[in-house]
């Protein structure tokens, strides 16, 4: 009887071991959505770290210089990033679609218009958005960021009551043929995606599984 008990215990232990091994094996296979066609070892989980450093220069407007003063088109200029930013905001706030188009860097304009066309975001759509979200609102310049050849102007469009809205927005400008024009060149840059100047962060880590 004692021998039978020992045998049963050994059998249970063996089954437990087999079950554990099967679970591990199944677990490894389950992790992968694609497997090799030819004989290969079990998958080994590894990681790789890629670190990228971005250096930029930050300016904030002095008190009294953050309110954006809109201009008529005949007084507008694209000579500096500040002037171009005012032009862009003025074009939007005066619901002037053709002026708005003229503030784009040509390559970025082409990219933007292609994308907008795919999404059905045509001229009437933008004019409606601008009337609802910009016309009659206060626009405040929050920060100016210089990064390589680009200048990022960070601004806030007020709520209808004149108070700052919760969202600060960036517009990226680049000098081309003597004009500072709106650029989408940084659209995939982590620097713009994380906009570290907003919260004053100096690092960010993302894990991709």
């Amino acid at each position, binding site marked *: 009887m004692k021998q039978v008990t020992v045998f049963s215990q050994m059998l249970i232990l063996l089954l437990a071991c087999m079950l554990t091994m099967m679970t591990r094996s199944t677990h490894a296979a389950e*992790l*992968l*959505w*694609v*497997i*090799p*066609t*030819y*004989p*290969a*070892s*079990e*998958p*080994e*989980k*590894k*990681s*790789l*770290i*890629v*670190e*990228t*450093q*971005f*250096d*930029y*220069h*930050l*300016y*904030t*407007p*002095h008190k009294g*210089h953050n309110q954006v003063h809109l201009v008529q088109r005949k007084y507008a200029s694209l000579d500096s990033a*500040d002037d171009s930013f005012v032009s862009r905001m003025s074009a939007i706030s005066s619901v002037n679609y053709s002026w708005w188009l003229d503030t784009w860097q040509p390559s970025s304009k082409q990219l933007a218009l292609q994308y907008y066309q795919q999404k059905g975001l045509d001229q009437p759509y933008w004019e409606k958005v601008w009337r609802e979200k910009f016309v009659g609102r206060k626009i405040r310049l929050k920060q*100016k960021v210089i990064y390589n050849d680009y200048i990022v102007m960070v601004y806030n469009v007020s709520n209808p009551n004149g108070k700052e809205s919760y969202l600060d927005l960036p517009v990226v400008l680049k000098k081309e043929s003597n004009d500072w024009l709106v650029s989408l060149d940084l659209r995939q840059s*982590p*620097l713009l995606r*994380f906009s*570290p*100047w907003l919260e004053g*962060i*100096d*690092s*960010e*880590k*993302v*894990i*991709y*599984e």
Partner: protein
Amino acid sequence: MNNLAKNYLSLVMLIAISTLVLWSSTAQSIERKYNDQGEKTFTYTQEFIFHHQKYQNVILSDFITESIDINNGPDTQLVHFLSAILADDFEWWLSLWSIETQQDWTQKLAINKAQRTFHYWKGRFNKNTVAQLQDFIVLGQRVLIGVELKNSASEYYLLPFTLENNRWRIDQPFMDSLLYKKLKNNIIKS
């Protein structure tokens, strides 16, 4: 000093003064309007988790003679890639690269980028070359296959594949990324 030299000197001084005035007015304009918060640094760290499998002594021999439009996995697609080289079939070989790669090469038609790359591969792989599979790496939505091509010397290639319309295609732009270069170094050293 003759008149010509005097005029030249005046012109140089005028340009220097204008530049200085322009720079000074720009600097003053920034100073007048903004508080300088100084240089900042943002460090972006990406940790990529991947799964690595080593092939167990797999020497490729199942090459085919013409294109088959089928999804049998990325390593089978590598066999098709080598088969297209053996068959000297440029169009078939080109069709195994991603759309983005092909578009990029179309733009570089003047330098014959696609044909040059095809000839590069023909120089690396022929009927006498021993092709041994080494690594199978799953990295997000990509699979990278490591293969050793043995001619008089051995060379290691790590080809990244992505799924496009349910077909595995080689992604040349990814091979230019920092992530790819680091991963290749990491695999070679492991």
